[in-house]
């Protein structure tokens, strides 16, 4: 199958003309920098419950934004009316906002330099845009999933969903960069819920399939064995409902990538955003314990810990050719042999720390809609697999008393990324190097550097899986971004395990 081309319904929109009008007007008004972003984002969400399609909605977000630096202050405005007159008005509003902002701007805005990218086009790696697949076919698939799940004796109710996104962006700035991009992503999922008649306990078991920067082929060509997972989830739920409640205490953990990606996201991904480390998210998402003075010295984790930021990862949810400041995307080290060695940057952060990345942004600016200003967002941040090819069984075999954690569920971490607590979908007791039945009511709680410092071994490439999230939140006004995190299975020693029923006082 040939690679998809740029969607002609986007190409036909007047983005280039409006961009020239807006940039010209901003320049006339004295902007030292101006960029224009025109976006069309298409979404479809389908949701089924118990054999019935419950939710089906299509949405499209179309508009443009003008961002300026005027007399050292930012100004931003956006609009949705696609006329030359409106492009001029939005540019004028952006400059007017900058004038208001100037009185409160005590540190003039400057941007790290970036080469000009002259009219380049980038399209993500996928075969079939899921939005081109008939809704009826997708609905039938989800309904079928719920019916098959409900066939399990332990399952009282079943849900399934499919979120799909097609994102088109055109970027232009006064320096001459022009980029046009298109990417597709989707997130399928399902969950079965049941109750144990004897105890009255209810619980659920969800798919551990990750969202992906792929097309409809993710559902059809064997990237994930949906049929096998649907067949096993009812049995897994039945076992979970009968499982003993965990005894709180200290355990060794073997963590599957379907769970560990989220721990990476919260305790490494967000902690190594330079805007957070420098205080620019202090009022909302928080700062970071990994402050800039610790670069090159902070022992983030054990020597087997190597983490890379990568906005070029194939099929990654944060993968793009050029970011929303016209920066060509890159890959770089964040943690090397357990030591903090890098941060995620946008152009303003790159300017503040010119000794990083040779004074250039590493391409982490992103806005989730034409109505929002680009901010520094996360690259795909991944844990590098080990070179000695350890399997999950190898890791389990090293544990005398421990727990094997599979799938994500609840997550929470403090505003400096020290203290976290995670649960999961499935927990297996490990006794003398072997899995020994399921446990319930498990949460693991740790401090970031203690946890990563306790990582004794990482699995090989065969255990590596690219997980991720569709809706990572940050900034004010709030924005969401999709991001992937790859990791192998990994072994951690001496982690604090809570019993969640005890925590609830039950």
């Amino acid at each position, binding site marked *: 199958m040939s690679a998809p081309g740029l969607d002609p319904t986007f190409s036909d929109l007047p983005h280039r003309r409006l961009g020239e009008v807006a940039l010209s007007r901003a320049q006339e008004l004295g902007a030292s920098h101006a960029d224009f972003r025109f976006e069309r984002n298409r979404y479809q969400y389908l*949701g089924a419950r118990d054999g*019935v*399609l*419950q*939710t*089906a*909605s*299509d*949405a*499209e*977000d*179309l*508009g443009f934004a003008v961002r300026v630096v005027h007399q050292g202050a*930012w*100004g*931003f*405005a*956006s609009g*949705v*009316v*696609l*006329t030359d007159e409106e492009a001029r008005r939005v540019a004028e509003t952006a400059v007017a*906002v900058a004038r*208001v*902002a100037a009185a*409160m*701007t*005590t*540190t003039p805005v400057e941007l790290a330099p970036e080469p000009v990218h002259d009219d380049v086009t980038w399209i993500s790696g996928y075969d079939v845009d899921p939005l081109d697949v008939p*809704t009826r076919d997708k609905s039938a698939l989800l309904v079928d999933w719920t019916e098959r799940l409900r066939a399990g004796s332990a399952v009282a*109710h079943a849900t399934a969903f499919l979120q799909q996104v097609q994102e088109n962006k055109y970027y232009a700035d006064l320096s001459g960069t022009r980029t046009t991009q298109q990417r597709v992503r989707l997130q399928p999922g399902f969950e079965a*819920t049941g109750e144990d008649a004897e105890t*009255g306990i*209810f*619980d659920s078991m969800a798919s551990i399939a990750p969202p992906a920067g792929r097309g409809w082929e993710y559902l059809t060509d064997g990237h994930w064995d949906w049929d096998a997972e649907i067949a096993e989830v009812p049995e897994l739920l039945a076992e979970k409902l009968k499982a003993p409640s965990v005894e709180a205490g200290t355990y060794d953990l073997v963590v599957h990538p379907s769970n560990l990606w989220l721990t990476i996201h919260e305790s490494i991904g967000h902690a190594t955003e330079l805007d957070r480390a*420098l*205080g620019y998210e*202090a*009022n*909302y998402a928080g700062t970071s*314990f990994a402050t800039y003075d610790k670069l090159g010295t902070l022992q983030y984790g054990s020597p087997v810990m190597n983490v890379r930021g990568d906005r070029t990862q194939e099929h990654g949810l944060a993968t793009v050719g050029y970011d929303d400041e016209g920066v060509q995307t890159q890959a770089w080290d964040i943690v090397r042999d357990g030591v903090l060695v890098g941060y995620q940057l946008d152009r303003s952060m790159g300017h503040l720390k010119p000794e990083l990345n040779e004074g250039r942004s590493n391409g982490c600016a992103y806005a989730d809609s034409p*109505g*929002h200003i680009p901010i520094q967002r996360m690259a795909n941040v991944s844990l590098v697999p080990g070179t000695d090819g350890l399997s999950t069984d190898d890791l389990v075999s090293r544990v005398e008393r421990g727990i094997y954690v599979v799938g994500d569920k*609840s*997550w*929470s971490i*403090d505003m400096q990324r*020290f*203290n976290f*607590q995670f*649960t999961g979908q499935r927990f297996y007791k490990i006794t003398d190097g072997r899995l020994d039945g399921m446990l319930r*009511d498990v949460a693991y*709680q740790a*401090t970031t550097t203690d946890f990563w410092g306790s990582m004794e071994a990482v699995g090989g490439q065969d255990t590596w899986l690219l997980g991720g999230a569709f809706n990572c939140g940050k900034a*004010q*006004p709030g924005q969401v971004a999709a991001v992937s995190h790859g990791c192998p299975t990994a072994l951690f020693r001496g982690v604090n395990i809570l019993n*969640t029923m005890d*925590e*609830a*006082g039950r």
Partner: protein
Amino acid sequence: MTISARTTAQQLVEHALATSSADDCIAIVRDVTSANLRWANNTLTTNGVMTEMSVTVVSFVAVDGGTATGSVSGSASTTEQVTAIVEAADAAARAGSPAEDAAELVGDVASPDWDLEPETTDIGVYDAFAPALGEAFVEATAERRLLYGFVNHDVTTTYLGSSRGLRLRHVQPTGHYACTGKDDALTRSAWTGGATRDFRDVDAAAMAATVKQRLGWAERRVELPAGRYDTILPPSSVADLMIDAYWGAGARVAHEGESVYSRRGGGTRIGDKVAAPGVSLFSDPAYAGLECAPFVVTGASDNTDSVFDNGLPLERTDWIRDGLLTGLIQTRHSAGMTGQPVTPMIDNLVLEIGDGAGTVDDLVAGTQRGLLLTCLWYIREVDPQSMLLTGLTRDGVYVVEDGEIVGAANNFRWNESPIDLLNRFTAATDTVPSFSREWGDDYFSRTATPALRVPDFNMSSVSQGV
């Protein structure tokens, strides 16, 4: 593309209804303007003025076995764009299967202000606030404090029209402010924030002064271990927790055995005692200061919303009355399943305690030894059966001794259920306007809650975060 910037919202609605070839059609037009300022390290960082116009069309088509629906939304300001949305919605409905929540559409209700233009906001809403904020930066810099914060104001005008005669309009102003302060060594942190409708009641100097006062409280630092503490939850923290309790109150999920509001063996706990006597939790579109849409507007169906319910009138709904669970979030569809009244979701929430009186200061004065929180953060559900939530304290945990604040403690991770808290609290204040730190910015800013004192709040572990 032809356009017309002058095409009105009402014309877009009428065009959608006239263009649709479905059996029935609902058109929702939202005109949104917003303006924001954001700052950090005593300087403005980002800002913006945004305008949006979106159109949602829900088409209804009779098919074998019932009525199918199609829902399509998009940015639109021209009739041509609306035509494309209508055609997509009609096609989606024709390709769809019968909706389980099908019900008679609401008809023939009109707002007297239907013909009015959208109301808007712009950067001028900060004409008084912005200069005062600039002065606060100067003072903070001189006194070696750092200020971080955000203000946002938006006005959404919603037009809801239908082929059955609905012509409803609602104007919703929403605003909020927040400011975090730190000492320049970054060892102390304080926060204040709240909601507003128009920023006329927000004083940047007063905001900065509150942060300064709280940083002063933290000059003495006390290290405390994890454990259960006599804890005063201010109204903002109570709002955080009550929003979760409200969002988790879907009737269908409860009826089907999947929430804290489910009765073991089947059905909901409506009629059961779920909180202490005197506890009332309710929503009311007309509540003074928290006014919100008095009718249902929704573009898609799910467990707690039904497109067939668009236009249903909303009125005060008691969720908990005098400790008894009296209502859950119901569509007409779920009401049919549960045999309960139709009580759709409403965009505000009020908690009142029968004998609550006084202020947070009064609770502090009446506490021998305990903690006063500022706000909660990163709240997530751990166990739906008990509605066990986890989260962190943030930006100020103050130590109270003999009725006075004597210093600040470290932060904690906590694990608690809001439903349990409504049974265990030992004192409450008057209900006042509040603002959820966790959910207020983006999702749910219209709350009024009291402060509560909980004698054994579960601080599960220490957080080193400041």
